[in-house]
């Protein structure tokens, strides 16, 4: 018997690996849906944290090969379609953020949680600025920045929880990478 056959993955294992590789994308989609669940109303505040931004940032910083640009685009587009805002707004924002974070990947290579968090705060600020500018241009008027600021603060505050969850997913993925 050839040694190649014994160490080569079985078709089932290969399929399992493929399924695993789509996991970050599925997590991204899940984050989009979570954005639309009226969680804020439990405590009576009107805020929908940008969960998908966390996913985009995390995977761009850690494993961009598991979350390619078209997946980022798809996640953004789903968010655009579910919200009533300009179509392409979040797709554009997320893809740009993805590109920017990827070029800064080396900074996050050490994976110090605080660095990751600070990086996210800066990323969120950039994302908010981009989205706000694009939306203001789209509607041809200066939109109130209050809601987007509130959204960003809550998103940044919640990031460590989600980063822990994403790290779990990453650990599940680790053997197949």
């Amino acid at each position, binding site marked *: 018997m050839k040694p190649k056959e014994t160490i080569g993955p079985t078709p089932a294992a290969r399929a399992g690996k493929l399924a695993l590789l789509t996991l970050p994308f599925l997590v991204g989609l899940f984050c989009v*849906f*979570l*954005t*639309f*669940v*009226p*969680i*804020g*109303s*439990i*405590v*009576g505040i*009107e805020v*929908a944290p940008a969960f998908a931004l966390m996913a985009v940032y995390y995977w761009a910083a850690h494993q*961009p090969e598991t979350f*390619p*640009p*078209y997946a*980022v*685009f798809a996640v*953004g*587009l*789903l968010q*655009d*379609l*579910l*919200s*009533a*805002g*300009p*179509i*392409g*707004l979040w*797709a*554009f924002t997320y*893809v*740009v953020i*993805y*590109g920017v974070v*990827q*070029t800064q*990947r*080396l900074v996050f*290579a*050490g*994976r110090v949680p605080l660095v990751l968090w600070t990086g996210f705060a800066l990323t969120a600020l950039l994302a908010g600025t981009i*989205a*706000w500018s*694009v*939306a203001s241009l*789209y*509607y041809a*008027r200066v*939109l*109130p920045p*209050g*809601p*987007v600021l*509130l*959204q960003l603060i809550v998103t940044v505050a919640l990031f460590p929880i989600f980063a822990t969850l994403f790290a779990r997913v990453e650990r599940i993925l680790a053997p197949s990478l």
Partner: protein
Amino acid sequence: MQDSFSRPAPPILGVSNRVSLIFMVTLAVALLLLGRAETYVFDQARQVVTDLAAPVLELGSRPVAAGRRLVERTDEFAYVFDENERLRQENAELLTWKEKALKLQARLARYEALLNVQLDPSINYVTGRVIGDTGGPFVETFIVNLGHEHGVESGQAVVDSEGLIGRIVSAGERASRILLLTDLNSRVPVTIEPTRQRAVLSGDNTVWPKLEFLPAGSGVVPGDHVVTSGHGGLMPPGLPVGTVIQTENGDLRVQTFSNRNRLDMVRVLQYRFPMDVPEQNPPAKLTAPVPGEESEEGQPSASDQNGALGGTAGGTAGGTAGGTAGGTAGGVVRGSLAGAGGAGE
């Protein structure tokens, strides 16, 4: 985790990665530009996606609703004694008001009968649950689990127990989108009581929508009541909207009665524009009642009065069982001019 320092540095950007990144950015920009120019296709796509996502959102919104109820219960529990005291006082006040209201109602019914006033058409409604949040800082919309299946159409007014919330902007089979009064695309014609000034309530993504087209020296002061005027025929007249407030820079804005942070069950009003109601002949019916004619068909019978009261309730509280029941054939036809008559005088 441990080997992260010893690992070789990851490649910064692969060529294919960079190409697809640029392609995706271009595509997103193209979508933005296209979406600005051509809305129909995008609206359709959006509706399809919303419809498909509705079951998922519905699933997600249930634990949230339960959580909110729990928080509210706990809140209420803490203030139950104060609340009880307050309600007792309010009840005493309301009882005197009720007396007055009953007297006025009887008098109004008599006058209406005398003048042969055309009544509001009765309004049917359908109740649903908010399953989707705005999901973004730039829009003020909610998704409700009602659609064509339930008779919901674009343009219908949406109310909660307190007052007007907004209107349906797009309706799918199972789910629809509500445009809130605060959204920057929302324009609702309103009347301000007691001066009967007309204005347009215009959202700008802030908490308080502003009053536009209000003439200078209109006599509108903070504290005045804002109700829908029914102009344009999309919404029934007389729906409570909010109270006039004045901001620091002197603008008149409106504090809505409905609390958007606590939206749960909402009602979609299936109002028909009076013009769509057949067999109307406004001038002949509004001008001085002819005695002979009055005895023939204008004489207020018991059922007509029921229709009248029900119709009024439907116009103000957003439709009650009485309002629906009162919608006999007579009610509908008779109500054909009420929108214009009631709002414009």
